[in-house]
């Protein structure tokens, strides 16, 4: 066997084994959580409030809390993000300014989420006196989702072929008409995919809501924007760190984790299905 052949062989083996290690680790991760948690999930678990100091009952208030936190934050972040992306794509000038803003946005994505939590506490909870509430939490999560949505939307618009825009301008369309009638409709599926992925991210975050929205224990469902809420990720944290009966609490934590995991997987699958259909239809 000559040295080149050996190099090829070694390279392929290395790549293959790394791939297998990764897949096995991922599979084991899913197995570790789901095998401990899925057994706990039942209709009652999903529809009842926690009982007896979180040692019995279900997670319904946390499900509802996470649902509202996620929906509200996306409803706030999506229009802001899309309009901001349109500005960067079409109107931002001069170029260096746009690039600095983009760099800043990219950096925001990498900031640890606990810092968003502190920011939310300082600004929404204290400065604006929204208190620890659904509103403060949703706003904090919206700020977390904003850079993700801006980046996804801007990239989606950049990937619209310039040919389409040229044709539109050549027919007498203004820049505004070209954006609303050509660029946005063409980019929309990709923008929505980005939005759905950020939904998955927002639903699973703990740190940003810790000081801004979440409560350990509540049998009551949120009635208004100013109510504290339970949330799935924070409920797991609470189950593992508070209370006195860990033997009963830990299985519930795994059950909650499984529900959250399956929810995020479900949301991501929707994004994948949208993207798949889009690629199949795309012909330019």
């Amino acid at each position: 066997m000559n040295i080149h052949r050996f190099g090829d062989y070694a390279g392929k083996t290395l790549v293959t084994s790394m791939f297998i290690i990764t897949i096995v680790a991922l599979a084991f991760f899913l197995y570790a959580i789901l095998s401990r948690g899925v057994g706990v999930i039942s209709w009652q678990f999903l529809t009842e409030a926690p009982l007896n100091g979180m040692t019995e009952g279900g997670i319904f208030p946390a499900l509802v809390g996470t649902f509202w936190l996620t929906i509200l934050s996306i409803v706030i972040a999506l229009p802001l993000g899309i309009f901001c992306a349109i500005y960067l794509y079409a109107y931002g000038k001069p170029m260096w300014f746009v690039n600095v803003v983009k760099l800043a946005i990219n950096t925001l994505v990498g900031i640890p989420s606990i810092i968003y939590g502190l920011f939310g506490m300082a600004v929404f909870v204290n400065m604006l006196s929204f208190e620890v509430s659904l509103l403060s939490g949703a706003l904090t999560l919206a700020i977390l989702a904003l850079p993700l949505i801006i980046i996804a939307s801007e990239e989606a618009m950049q990937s619209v072929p310039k040919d389409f825009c040229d044709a539109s301008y050549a027919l007498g369309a203004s820049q505004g008409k070209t954006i609303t009638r050509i660029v946005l409709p063409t980019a929309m599926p990709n923008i929505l995919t980005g939005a759905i992925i950020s939904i998955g991210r927002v639903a699973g975050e703990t740190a940003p809501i810790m000081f801004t929205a979440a409560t350990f224990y509540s049998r009551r469902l949120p009635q208004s924007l100013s109510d504290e809420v339970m949330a799935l990720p924070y409920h797991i944290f609470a189950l593992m760190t508070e209370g006195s009966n860990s033997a009963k609490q830990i299985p519930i934590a795994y059950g909650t984790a499984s529900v959250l995991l399956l929810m995020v997987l479900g949301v991501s699958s929707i994004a994948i299905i949208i993207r798949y259909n889009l690629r199949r239809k795309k012909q330019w």
Partner: protein
Amino acid sequence: MVKSHISTKDLNLWFGDNHVLHDINLELYENKITAMIGPSGCGKSSLLRCFNRMNDLIPKSKIKGSILLDDIDIYHPHISVTQIRTKVGMVFQKPNPFPKSIFNNVAYGLKIQGKYKKSEIRDIVEKTLKDVWLWDEVKDRLNSSAFSLSGGQQQRLCIARALANSPRILLLDEPTSALDPQSTAKIEELCLDLKDKVTILIVTHNIAQAGRISDYTAFMYLGDLVEFGESSKVFTVPKDKRTEAYLTGVFG
């Protein structure tokens, strides 16, 4: 003498420091086909794009001189660019229909003007698709994606899209260079058929094509308009040595 309704006067164009067009004086005659030929990079496409102000979209482009369309200077500060572009239609090198239905591709120019009724738009779309010989091929599937058409059909759709605005002039930027010979022949035939309705300016790399369809030919070289005249004369007895050299394939 045939009537000229568009002319350039001492037209100069720069992209940054690059002086692309030098003192171009060119006249286009009504309901005639004018072909612009010349080697790559001679400025023929850039000149074409002056007529509908597409060069305005390029940052750092600068233009001097004037272009008169029916005695109106299209670069006059009070003239609206979008208005000019409805009067001067353009078809690009690569067929570039919108990711929309066949119907909506043709209707786009009318819809964005917002001054036509639905029934009017329907009538114009049908008439324009008939003008480009596409109606019989697509009348049963007006709502299908424009991408379901063949390359040649897509290019005729793009011509229809430009014609729907009833432009005075149609600019064609190497419209057949991405097409097979059969589709090319069809587009050429179409041009000859359309010239009763619209004045045509076509940029082509294909000298034979220019000879087949044009009434007038402009030869450009290194940003200069070297020669302009009736095609029959330019092709048989060119006045300039460079034109002759290009036509006989010495360079290009």
